């Protein structure tokens, strides 16, 4: 009995000393209101806290719609956490603004990660994601057969002419309200994420990536004008709606209103349950190769963290395949590694969503890696919305270039 009492006391004392020794790390995450995502992140934190004696992560979650504003306010008040998550394209801005510091992890552990999951700015890794997202042209095999269309692949995507012929065929059939659902009901980041790859496939871009000091030529050059005219033609020629009811975006494809839908992998299972013959096609090649957007939410370390090594230890811990797979199973996004994909029924070889992994690894182009992106994204969105609603293409793109260049100049080139 004495032995037992002694052993129990020793165990309690050792547990207490371990608990006392653990340094607290604060973490902010954008998943408030998303029950599944919060459950997963809490499980990850519990596992990490129990796996070692040095660090204890405490989570504060924020609603996604208010997250970026909260981080900016936290930075102004000198109240950032140790670990924060950041939407990939915003990372350069936060790093440039002094909110984040380079992430010191063993980079051999992320060698096999999808390119869009790595947040690199100024040659340094700042953030890393457990998943990526991808967009595809969603349709049904029966639609392709009915319209006599070949099935495009990553190696042989549709050309612009083939794509427009497909839309023409769908329109001529009269079977659908509109041939194409672009998701115009969604605003904000959807525009640069989903539509700037079209511009890049034409050969243009939001900003000149060789210097990041001007948008001249990239957003208003010949390729960009061709893109703008094509974009406007989608609406003026009745291929797509410039204004869309959100309900149609959510359920229009399943209700048979659209022949094709430009949508993300997060909506793929819904499409499959509506039509088992749903196929996810690669984007068309408008001349400079087929492109989709890359980069989703990623983890990083705040610039004010007093324990960057602890924060990095947590992030490294999170990079295990089992967590990548768990998040993918829970929220439907693409696991960052091929080995984790094999652990997920949807994304393993032969899985119903496996093509998204292929698109993400072969076609993804991250949005412009510059602190100015946060402004450029809004300018791009406005320009595209205006053009969709009939504004003059060249004048609108010229105005967008002026606005982007003025912002770059005002901010001293954003450190480029």
């Amino acid at each position, binding site marked *: 009995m004495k032995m037992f009492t002694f052993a129990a006391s020793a165990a309690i004392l050792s547990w207490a000393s371990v608990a006392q020794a653990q340094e607290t790390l604060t973490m902010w995450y954008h998943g408030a209101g998303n029950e599944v995502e919060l459950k997963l992140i809490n499980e990850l934190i519990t596992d990490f806290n129990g796996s070692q004696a040095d660090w204890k992560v405490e989570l504060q979650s924020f609603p*996604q719609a208010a997250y970026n504003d*909260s981080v900016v306010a936290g930075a102004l008040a000198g109240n950032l956490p140790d670990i924060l998550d950041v939407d990939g394209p915003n990372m350069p801005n936060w790093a440039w603004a002094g909110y984040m510091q380079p992430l010191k992890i063993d980079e051999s552990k992320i060698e096999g990660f999808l390119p869009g999951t790595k947040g690199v700015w100024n040659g340094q890794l700042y953030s890393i994601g457990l998943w990526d997202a991808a967009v595809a042209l969603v349709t049904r095999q029966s639609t392709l057969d009915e319209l006599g269309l070949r099935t495009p692949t990553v190696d042989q995507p549709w050309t612009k002419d083939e794509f427009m012929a497909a839309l023409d065929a769908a329109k001529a059939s009269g079977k659908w309200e509109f041939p194409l659902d672009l998701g115009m009901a969604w605003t904000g980041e959807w525009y640069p994420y989903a539509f700037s790859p079209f511009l890049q496939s034409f050969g243009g871009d939001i900003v000149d990536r060789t210097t990041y000091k001007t948008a001249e030529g990239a957003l208003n050059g010949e390729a960009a004008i061709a893109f703008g005219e094509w974009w406007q033609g989608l609406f003026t020629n009745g291929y797509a709606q410039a204004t869309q009811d959100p*309900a149609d975006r959510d359920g229009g494809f399943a209700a048979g209103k659209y022949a094709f839908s430009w949508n993300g992998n997060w909506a793929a299972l819904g499409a499959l349950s509506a039509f088992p013959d749903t196929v996810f096609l690669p984007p068309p090649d408008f001349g400079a190769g087929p492109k989709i957007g890359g980069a989703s939410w990623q983890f990083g370390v705040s610039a004010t963290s007093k324990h960057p090594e602890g924060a990095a230890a947590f992030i490294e811990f999170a990079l295990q395949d089992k967590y990548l797979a768990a998040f993918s199973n829970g929220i439907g996004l693409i696991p960052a590694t091929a080995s984790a994909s094999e652990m997920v029924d949807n994304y393993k070889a032969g899985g119903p969503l496996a093509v998204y992994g292929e698109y993400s690894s072969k076609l993804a182009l991250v949005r412009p890696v510059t602190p100015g992106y946060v402004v450029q994204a809004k300018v791009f969105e406005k320009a595209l919305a205006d053009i969709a609603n009939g504004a003059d293409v060249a004048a609108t793109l010229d105005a967008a270039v002026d606005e982007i260049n003025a912002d770059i100049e005002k901010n001293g080139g954003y450190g480029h």
Partner: protein
Amino acid sequence: MAMISAENRGLRLATRYAVLVLIAIIFVFPLVFMLMSSLKPDQQLLEDSGNLRAFLPVGDISLQNYWDAFKRAPVATFVFNSVLVTGVTVVLSLLLCSAAGFAFVFVNWKGRNTLLALLLATLILPFETIAIPLLMMVAYLPWLGMEGLIWGWLNSYHVQIIPFIADGLTVFLFVQYFKDLPGELIEAARVEGASWFQIYRKIVMPLSGPIFATAAILKFLVMYNQYLWPLMVTQEEGYRPVMVGLQYFFQLNVAWGEVMAYLSLITVPVLAFYLYLQKAFIASIASTGVKG
């Protein structure tokens, strides 16, 4: 002639009622839409939104959205926080601003007109212009609480209350109202030897019920609808108010039924407060109108 006049009067009355009913419908329908939508599944809600069914409890009616709203967000915490912060701010604001108004109107002191002018000038400053400097200030202010002296007010109730206790508009309302109170009463009380506090407490306050109600309702609405400031100063979920909580429902695919259920829940305290004070509020508006 008398008959025609009676007919005319009847017609005028009917027209007046028709206009009033129309206005009432315009104001009530959004609330009815919100309540009815909160009882319907998303698909039906969206289908009904284009027709009159949106205002009727028809179809697949249930309280499921309310249940789901409570599962998605700590609704009770958000409502409690908002009611607490709003309630305390309103009470403190009424006391402080009415006392300030009293001092501006009845007490003769050097510089009061200049100070009142400065105070009124703050009315043209939108809160957004001072939000960031205020944030940077409160982040480093000391606070003596249960844990002893701490630095920084973030993640607390008092950071949501103290900056909003005094404001130019509320002081202005009291000043305007107090100016119309009979000055003879105050002078008589002074002659009788009453202190300024006794005059404020025993004479002015009992005569100022309507303006207290008006100021309370206006302050209540401002505080209950706070979004930007609490978003900036409450990183901890336990201190967030209802308007920040609303963002929990705007995920990629918005659950509109839950949004409507949440909005219905958080509207209840506002309606209850307004109904409680509406007589005094209307009296205040009416008396203000008569004065002009």
